[in-house]
Each structure stands twice: as structure tokens, then as C-alpha cells.
């Protein structure tokens, strides 16, 4: 029995519960925030080493054998995602120490953060389709609550859209799960895959595949289902934005990867073709959306959408290299995008705005911040030798190899427009002379040394990750390659989960 499979869920759950239990004691909450997310990170690394050593790890929750109970499954892909959850969680927790107001803390900021991480980790690790729904909801409601923390007008308006569209997605998901259960009589994903493997050419399977695609497409913010994201991601406190930007949509992408490599692999010519179109349109419309924006976080939000397109592209092409590229892209993007949001928060702390036209002069006054911005920004745009370059390179190479020239062309063009956006931010926020001071706006108190350190530390850490992946890509590449191998050979997953039950036909 290897507890590290379940610990990434239970540690944040316990941290959240404890944090809520001590909701009046701010120091304790802060302590739990750091220790909890830190141990999540450590555990996830432990999980990686175990998975690396023993292959796919499975825990049958409650000791009920699969497919009857709920299985937690840690294959390499899930493990990578959990590690990223740990990294982002820990970074955001550190950052939050400096940026979270007393009011936010008093109203559950830290418990919500822990539980959001628990939901995310649960979604990554579960091997049960209904349990996936449950973790989606945990994550979603935690994000609802984080989104409205502060009760500002924009938050309310954003939250209504966010809540409505995400609930619609949940209901579509739930509907699909209900129908799927009706059709195959099981919920364990490995079991579903195994049973569907015995079915010849059933149209209903494709119908369900498409339903799941739409449900997860909404969660992943794919075209044309992404509306909730740009409407809301710029409204909450920035640490929350970073957490969302890093993790939430990627859970949708993860789910797409999971079901379209494990369960719905019968007619890739149909399903993955739809994904391919979606990927292309997602890239394009996301980046065009960003081009029209002049607010730091809105630009970043639209870029989440366009980057999601690249990840889905990896899945849609469905070749070993492409899936590898998708995994690599997710890995790179989570770090980079969260970091960009964190940086936007520092900028806001220093200048008091997210509007590009009200910002400027930071290159002169905060050169290190400028450097720290350039690393993730250029990485996002796919500039070498940063992580994003390799991510984009693999996907594009896979696209050319798979002879999907149209979508590859889009991918290239979108890269250029991404660069345009990042450079726009750079020129406006850092290069441009600072704007005339606003009479009405009160002078900002300059942040204290300790506060700055708490903000910079995670940013530097994430930037180092980006640099590391870029300069020493081989280990990460190898990791992504192995995980893609696992993804494309579902029998390994099925065997790990079902054990002996694999052989006996239901």
C-alpha cells in the first residue's frame, strides 16, 4: 500500500479542514498554508519517484476492489499534474502571505485555497468518472468562493457568468456520466475502457464522447466555449487569478487527455478530428481576443484560451510526439501562466493598476522585475531557449509530421501574435515612461521588504523552473515522453487498475 497516491488529496483536505477549524487565528492559518502546500509538493515528488520506480500506482479506496470502489490511479501524466499542483500551490501560498488582506483571510481565503488544490489533485488522481465529477465540483465551488472574495462589482458580474457556464458544463458532464453508466454499467474509467474495448462500432459511444468533449471543453475554455474565462479571470485577487490561470482550465485539458486516450479511442478519425478543429479555433480566437485587450490580466486571460488550443492540438493529432508535446505544453504553461499573473500582481502592488495605459516606467525603477517578467513572457510566446519554445516546437513538429498543415500554420501565427501581446505589455508596463500621476488616486504605500520578498520568492522560483526546462530540457522531455507512452497504451492503465479482473470478461 503506497499512501503517496492518496496523500496529495488528503493533505490539502486536512490542511483545509484545519485551516477552517482555526479560522480566527491568522498566524496558524498562514503556517498551515505554507506547511500544507509545502508538504503537498514534497509528497507529489515522492509520488513521482514511486511511479518512476514501480510504474502506474493504484490505490483502491476503502479496500473495495476495482471496479466496485473508487480507484486512485497515479500514472506519470497524473503525477506530473500533481507535481504542478504542488508547485503552483506552494508558490501561490507564499505569495498570498504578502498579498492577502486580513479581510480575505478572515473569510476563508486559505481554506478555500487548500480545498481548491484538493479538488485539482483529486481530479488528476481519480480513476473513476463520477468521482472526477465530484472533484470537479470541489474545485469549482472553491473557485466560486475565491472568485467572489471581496464582493466587488466586477467580481459579481464575472462570477455570475463563471458560475452559470461552469454549472452548465457540470450538468452536461453529469448527464453524460448518467448515460454512460446506463450504457456500460460501470464508473471505473479503466473498466469502462475495457468494456468499451469489447464493443464494436457503437454510435452511442461516439455520442457520449462528444458530450464529454463539450463538457470538458467548457472547463478547458476551448473555442467556442470559453466565454466564462475572459469574463471572470481578471476580477479576483491576483493570487487567486494565478491559481486559476495555472490550474483550473488545465484540469479540463487533463480530463480531455484522459478520456480521449483511455476511454474514447474507438473512432479517433471522428472524435479527434473535431478536437483538431477546436484546437485550431481555440488558438486563433484566444490570441485575437488578447490583441484587443489593454489590461494586464485580461490579456493574460485570453492567452490562457489560446494556449489551451496548443495543448488540445497535441491530443488531437494523437501521435506519440503530439501527445508528448501536449503534456510538455501543459507542464510548461502552468508554470509560466501562473507566474505571469503573480508578476501582474507585483506590478499592481507597485503602480496600483492593471490598465496598461496607467502603467509604465518599471524598467527603470524595477529592473529585476523586468527580467522576471521577460522570462515567462517570452516563454509563453515560445521564444527560445525557454520552456515554451520546446513545447511549441514539439507540437509544431508533430503537426508537420502528421501533415496537419493548416492547424500548424495557425499555431505558428498564434505564436507570433502571442509575442506581440507580451511585447505590448513589456513596452507599456516596463519601457514606457510612467504616466502622469493621477490626482484622484491616493499615493500607494511602497511595499515593505518582507512583503516584497514573499512576492518575489515564488516568482523567482517559477522563473527558474521555466529556465531550467528551457536550458536542460532533456529530463522533462524524457518524463513527458514516458507519460505519453503510458497514455497511448491504455492497456497498461487498465491492467494496473483492474489487476486480475482484466482477464475475465464481464
Amino acid at each position, binding site marked *: 500500500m503506497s499512501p503517496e497516491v492518496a496523500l496529495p488529496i488528503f493533505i490539502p483536505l486536512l490542511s483545509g479542514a484545519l485551516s477552517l477549524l482555526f479560522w*480566527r487565528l491568522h498566524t496558524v492559518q498562514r503556517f498551515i498554508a505554507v506547511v500544507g502546500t509545502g508538504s503537498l509538493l514534497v509528497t507529489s515528488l515522492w509520488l513521482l519517484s514511486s511511479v518512476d520506480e514501480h510504474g502506474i500506482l493504484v490505490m483502491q479506496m476503502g479496500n473495495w476492489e476495482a471496479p466496485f470502489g473508487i480507484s486512485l490511479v497515479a500514472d506519470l501524466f497524473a503525477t506530473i499534474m500533481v507535481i504542478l499542483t504542488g508547485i503552483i500551490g506552494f508558490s501561490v501560498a507564499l505569495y498570498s502571505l504578502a498579498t492577502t488582506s486580513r479581510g480575505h483571510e478572515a473569510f476563508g481565503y486559505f481554506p478555500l485555497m487548500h480545498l481548491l488544490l484538493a479538488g485539482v489533485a483529486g481530479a488528476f488522481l481519480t480513476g473513476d468518472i463520477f468521482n472526477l465529477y465530484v472533484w470537479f*465540483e470541489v474545485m469549482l465551488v472553491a473557485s466560486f468562493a475565491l472568485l467572489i472574495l471581496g464582493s466587488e462589482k466586477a467580481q459579481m458580474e464575472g462570477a*455570475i457568468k463563471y458560475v452559470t457556464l461552469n454549472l452548465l458544463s457540470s450538468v452536461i458532464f453529469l448527464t453524460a456520466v448518467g448515460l454512460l453508466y446506463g450504457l456500460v*454499467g460501470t464508473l471505473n474509467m479503466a473498466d469502462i475502457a475495457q468494456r468499451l474495448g469489447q464493443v464494436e462500432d*457503437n454510435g452511442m459511444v461516439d455520442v457520449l464522447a462528444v458530450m464529454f468533449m463539450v463538457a470538458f471543453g467548457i472547463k478547458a475554455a476551448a473555442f467556442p*466555449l470559453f466565454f466564462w474565462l475572459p469574463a471572470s479571470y481578471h476580477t479576483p485577487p491576483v493570487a487567486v487569478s494565478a491559481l486559476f490561470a495555472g490550474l483550473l482550465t488545465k484540469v479540463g485539458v487533463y480530463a480531455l487527455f484522459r478520456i480521449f486516450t483511455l476511454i474514447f479511442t474507438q473512432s479517433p478519425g471522428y472524435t479527434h478530428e473535431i478536437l483538431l478543429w477546436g484546437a485550431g479555433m481555440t488558438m486563433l*480566437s484566444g490570441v485575437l481576443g488578447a490583441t484587443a485587450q489593454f489590461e494586464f490580466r485580461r490579456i493574460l486571460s485570453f492567452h490562457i484560451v489560446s494556449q489551451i488550443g496548443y495543448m488540445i492540438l497535441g491530443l488531437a493529432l494523437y501521435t506519440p510526439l503530439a501527445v508528448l508535446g501536449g503534456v510538455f505544453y501543459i507542464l510548461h504553461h502552468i508554470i509560466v501562466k501562473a507566474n505571469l499573473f503573480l508578476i501582474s500582481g507585483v506590478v499592481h502592488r507597485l503602480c496600483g493598476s492593471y490598465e496598461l495605459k496607467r502603467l509604465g516606467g518599471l524598467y527603470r525603477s524595477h529592473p529585476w522585475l523586468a527580467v522576471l517578467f521577460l522570462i515567462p513572457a517570452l516563454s509563453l510566446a515560445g521564444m527560445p531557449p525557454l520552456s515554451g*519554445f520546446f513545447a511549441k516546437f514539439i507540437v509544431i513538429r508533430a503537426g508537420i509530421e502528421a501533415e496537419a498543415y493548416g492547424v500548424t500554420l495557425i499555431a505558428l501565427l498564434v505564436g507570433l501574435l502571442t509575442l506581440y501581446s507580451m511585447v505590448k505589455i513589456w513596452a507599456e508596463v516596463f519601457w514606457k515612461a510612467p504616466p502622469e500621476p493621477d490626482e484622484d488616486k491616493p499615493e500607494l504605500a511602497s511595499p515593505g521588504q518582507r512583503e516584497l520578498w514573499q512576492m518575489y520568492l515564488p516568482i523567482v522560483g517559477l522563473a527558474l523552473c521555466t529556465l531550467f526546462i528551457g536550458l536542460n530540457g532533456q529530463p522533462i522531455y524524457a518524463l513527458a515522453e514516458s507519460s505519453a507512452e503510458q497514455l497511448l497504451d491504455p492497456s497498461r492503465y487498465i491492467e494496473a487498475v483492474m489487476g486480475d479482473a482484466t482477464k475475465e470478461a464481464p
Partner: protein
Amino acid sequence: MQLAVLGGFVLAAFAPLLHRWFGERAGLVMALLPASLSLWLFFQLPAVTAGEVLVFEYPWVPGLDISLTFLLDGLSLLFALMISVIGVFVLIYTRGYLKGHPDLARFHVVLVAFMMSMLGLVLADNVVTLFVFWELTSITSYLLIGFNHTDPEARKSALQSLLITAGGGLSLLAGLIMMALIGDSWSLQGLTSQGDVIREHGFYLPILLCVLGGAFTKSAQFPFHFWLPNAMAAPTPVSAYLHSATMVKAGIYLLARLQPGLGGTEAWMTLLSLFGAVTMVTGAFLALRHTSIKSLLAYSTVMALGTLTMLLGIGTKEAMVAFATFLLAHSLYKGALFLVAGILDHETGTKDIAAMGGLRRAMPVTATCAGIAALSLGGVIPLFGFIGKESMLEAVLHAERFSPFLSALSLSAAIMTLAAAAIVALRPFFGTRRETPRAPHEGPPEMLVGPILLAGLSLLLGVAPELASGLIAAAASSVNGEPLHASLSLWHGINPALMLSLVSLVLGLLIFRYWGHWRAWLRPLEPLFARGPEAGYFKFMDLIVTVSIWQTRMLQNGYIRNYLVMTLLVLVGLTGYTLLARQGLTFDFALDVHIHEVLVVGLMVSGAITACIMRLRLAAVAAVGTMGFCIALIFVTFSAPDLGITQLLVETLTVILLVLVLFRLPRFASLSTSLERVRDLVVAGSTGLLVTLLILTVLDGRLFPSISDYMIANSQPEGHGHNIVNVILVDIRALDTLGEVFVLALAAIGVYAMLRFHSSEHDDRHPPSRKESRNG
């Protein structure tokens, strides 16, 4: 070798620290790196000229066939030498030019990084690594061009150069990947040897176009030439560096490097020679329009780049030698000229040639350097530029195709170049003395070192060209793909090329004499220039912004209704199509109903519909309540007592919550038009129909027995509970329940935060402590 380049990047990163340690002298300290590199490269000369190719292997991401392998052949060595030698001068020069500038340290960071990127670019053997350095030069040059970052023009120019070169870079990437896949090698050497395979492949033309997209943008070929003069916003040392030895030559380098692999075809020759020639003439012509010394020099660079491309296109052995010669000559004189331009700018406070005159007395050394370098630019005997021009004209005259056309263009370019050279060399220093914003005097020594040495080299190599012939031959051999011999000499006797040179000298001087008239004649053509490719660039950028704004307005328009409709249409469209196309509507009806069940189901539906059509909120809530009770009844009827209880409790509490909330909300308003209602009815109705069909299909097509038989059998023996549902909830699927209660708790936290946060913020107090809350 790799260590040197990577170390250079590290050095760049440490530039601020060096500045702290060495102060103003940091630039000199950093110049030691390119200086030692130059020295090292210099010592490799014998081996390379002997035809050896030095390879330095180093793996990077082997999984992706990416290695950091460096390769030193004639071409690389020529470029590497230019880069590091001129780099030394530029670093030294900077010390004087940017003396006391607050951003000097950052400048050094980027400049050294740029230098190393260029070196990496010309040394890389792996196509991906080449591309990595290629993009690095784009980024670093962006940062350099925008060095005066508070100036909007500088930012604009920097952005322009970045977008064009990075855009070309992406095209290049696609081309390189296709090439690598077809040639089945990621090494440039490997690809060169696979030239025939690539040339015969069906994808040759796309590859070529992609690669040319990269090379032409980078090296400012027509119609992408406009970014380069705009890049003059950079500080002069940068211009000197960018335009003489480096950035713009990257594209040329790439073409030269790929010549053995991609070159030699009809398409290659046609495209390169024509675009090159047009660029050459365009550059030379536009140069004469400008009075700013930097613009003038920049356009003449465009002309030189066009020439180089044209030579590659011609592709004869002669042309290869001419290519290498012209390349070296251009680097030497253009470097010197830009540095001179910087001195003039620095010492007089203006860049406008028309505003200068008679400076030779105040700055004799500068004037001499300028004269030598400009004469070399004009291709005047006995300077190295003359040899370059002669060999170029030779090559053009002996071109295999388009020879007359190319010759004519080359001649006119030579004429105008000579005029430009004369303007640069004579205008500021001779004639009547004019007042300049600053009182002119000779530049400081660190600024003069570069021009003196570069101009000196132009002169030296002109007089003794055999000094360079080894290197030139080696470079030309690399371009050619197989060894060739080159003997450079100043005097080839009287031949057609010399005649053309003489013609160009005379006509060029004429233009110089009547330069003012020339500009006046051309003035009516201004609107035409305004409609040049640069206008196209701005149009394109505007178009993107327009499209993006249009798209945002169409998609992300803020109306949640539209978002929902769109999402649902996608759902219904995709799912419905899949259902009809891949499954079909096949199911049996077997109605086995009891009258009271029908009534309860009917009431449930009526409750829902009533809730929809009720104009009164609370009445709608009550209708929802009846629907809930009916659902509870349905649950009970179909054997789910737990569900029944839960449903009715939830319904009751929901009603309470709704009533508490509605207390604060206004009544329903009727806001939609009837057209909207019809549309919504269609969307809603089709979704409902789809769901019904899906359920019917699933009910009819169950494929496997449920896993719940196991649960029914084992819930008591294993789970010790008689209520199987509860055993599932708290034991078999306890993880679901665990998540579920966390959802509930989270919702409560959210509700609490929403309702209380504002007030506590307003009162600026923390939520009640334990003691307070006990007392209420």
C-alpha cells in the same frame, strides 16, 4: 567552444555586477571575451583555410534530436571573426558613446547576449539550435533597438523589427522542420549532404519559401526592408553592430549555409537573384532620399544585403568568391562608417548631414577614417571595397541567367552607392563650416579605436588582398559545398567590370554634385513611398486589431445569454449530429405505466413549466417546490427512499433560502422580445429533445450488466450495513461523499464571505472573535 558562448551569456548576466566592480571600465573588461575569442578564432585560421571542419559536439535534448553541436568551417569562421572583432570595437566604443548613461550596465547585458547569440547562430550545426540563436538575436536586438525606451518611436521601431524578424523566424522554423524531416537529419552538415533528396522532394518549394521567409525578413530584403532603417532608433554602437557584421547578416549567413542543401535549383536562383537585385536597387535609391546620416547608411546596408543575396542566387563559383569578399568588405567599411556617424552625432549633437559641414578641421582623425571607409563603400581603388565591387560586377556579368538585367541593376546601384559614399565622406567634413548644436571636437580615443582599425583594415586588405584570400576561399568553399580556389587582387587589368566601375564613379559624383536637386525631383514621389511595404505592414497590424476587436464583440460580448446559446448550440449540434449520423434513432417503446405515476410525472412537468411562465417570483418558487415534491414522490415510487427524503429536505431548505434571498430582490421584469423568446424556445426545445432521445437510446441499448450487483451482494457481509445506498455512500464510494461534503462546506464559506465580507470591510474590523460570537 560551447563553453565560450554559454560563458558569454553568463558574463552578460553578470554585467551589472561587473559595473559595480569596475565602474566605467566594465565594458573594457567585457571586451576581453570577444577579444580572446577573436584571437582563438584567428589561430584556427590555418586549419580552416586548409579545408578542415572543426566540430564540437555537445548533446542538449537528445530526445528531440537537439544538440548544441558547433561547427567551424570557412563560412562560420568568417562570420565568427567579424562578429567578435567588431564586437570588441563596439564594446570599447560604447564606453565613450554612452558615458555616464544610467542604463549602461543593462546595455552591456543585452549587447553581450546579442553578440553571443550571433556567434551561436553562425556556429550552430543543429537546425533547432540554429533557430534558438536566431530567435535570440531577434529578441536581443529588439531590446537594443528599443534602448531609448521612453521614446515611443524607438518602441515602435523595436516592435516592428521584432514582429517582422520573429514572424520570419516562425516561417523559418516550419521550413527547417520540414527540411529536417525530409532530409532525415537535424544537423546542418547532414542536411547539406542530403541536398538532392530535399531538392527532389515534392515539398521543396514550400520549404524554400519558408526558409526564404525567415532569411529575407531577417536580412531586410525587399519587401521587408523597411524595418532596418527604422531600427536606427537604436544607439549608434548598436546600429554599427547590427548593420555591419551581425543581425542582418544572419539571413545572409543562413542562405549561404543552406546553399549546398537547397540551392542550385531554378526556383532558388530566380528568387534569390531577383529579390536580391530589387533589394539592392531599392536600398541604394532610398538611401539618397535621406539626409540623416544613419538612415543613409542603413539604406546602403539594405543595398549591400540585396547584393549578397543576389550573389548567392547567381550561384557560380565566381559569385561565391564575390559573396565572401563583398561580405567582408561591407563589414569593415560599414562598421567604421557607423562608428563615425556615432562620433559625429555624439560630438555635434545632430545626425542630419545637411546640417553639417567643414568639420575636418575640428575632427581630423574622424574625417580621415570616414573618408577611407566611404571610399571603400563607394568601391574606389585601392580599397578593399573596390575589390568587393569588382568581383561582384564580374559575377553579375558572368551570371548564368538574367545577366543583362542584373548587370543593369548592379550598375545603377553602384552609381547611387557611390553618390551616397561621397555624401557621407565629403559633405560633413568639407565645404563651409556650419553651426551645430554642440561645438564639435575630436572624439575620445575609445571611440576612435574602432573606426581607425576598421578603416585601416579596409585599406590594408585593399592594398594586400592576399592576406584575406585564404579565409575568403574557405568561406566561399563552404558556401559552394565543395572546395574552390580564390585569388584576390587589386588589379585585374582593364575589363568590362572596371569599365562599369568607372561609369559608376562618374555618374555617382554627378548625383553627389546635384544631390539637393535630386531630392527635390524625387519629392513628388513621396506618396508612392508612403504606400510602400511599410504601409502594408501598418495596414496588416491595423487589420489584426480590427479583426480582434470584431471577434471580441461577436463572441465575448458580455451577454450571458449568447454564451449559453452558443454553448448549447455546440452541444446540440455536435451531439445531435453524432447521434443521427453514427447511431440513428432506434428504440422500442414499452409503456408500462400506472395512472398515479403518470399524474405525478405530469405534475412535475407542470410544476417546472409553471415556474417558467409565472410572472411572480415567489409563485415560481412555490411551483419549483411542487416539482421538488413530485420528484421526491417519483424517487419513492421507484424504490429510492433515501433519495425521496433527501429531495424533500433539500427542496424545503431551498425554498427557505430562496425566500430569504428574494426578500432583497426585485420582482420579475419581462424584458425579452417575442422574437428572443422564440429563439430561446427553439434552443431549449432542441436541447430537451436531444436529452429525451439520448435517454431512450441508452435505455434501449444497455451493453453490460451493472457493477452494482456486487454491491448488493456484499454490502451487508463486507460493509456491515443493511442500507445498501448508505453503504455505498459512506464506505464503497466514501471518497465521493467526502468530496461532496467539502463542496457543501465550500459553498457555505462562499455564502458567508459574500454576505459578510463587505460589512466587515466597511467597519474595518475582523469577524467576531469566539467570545463575541458566543454573546451574539
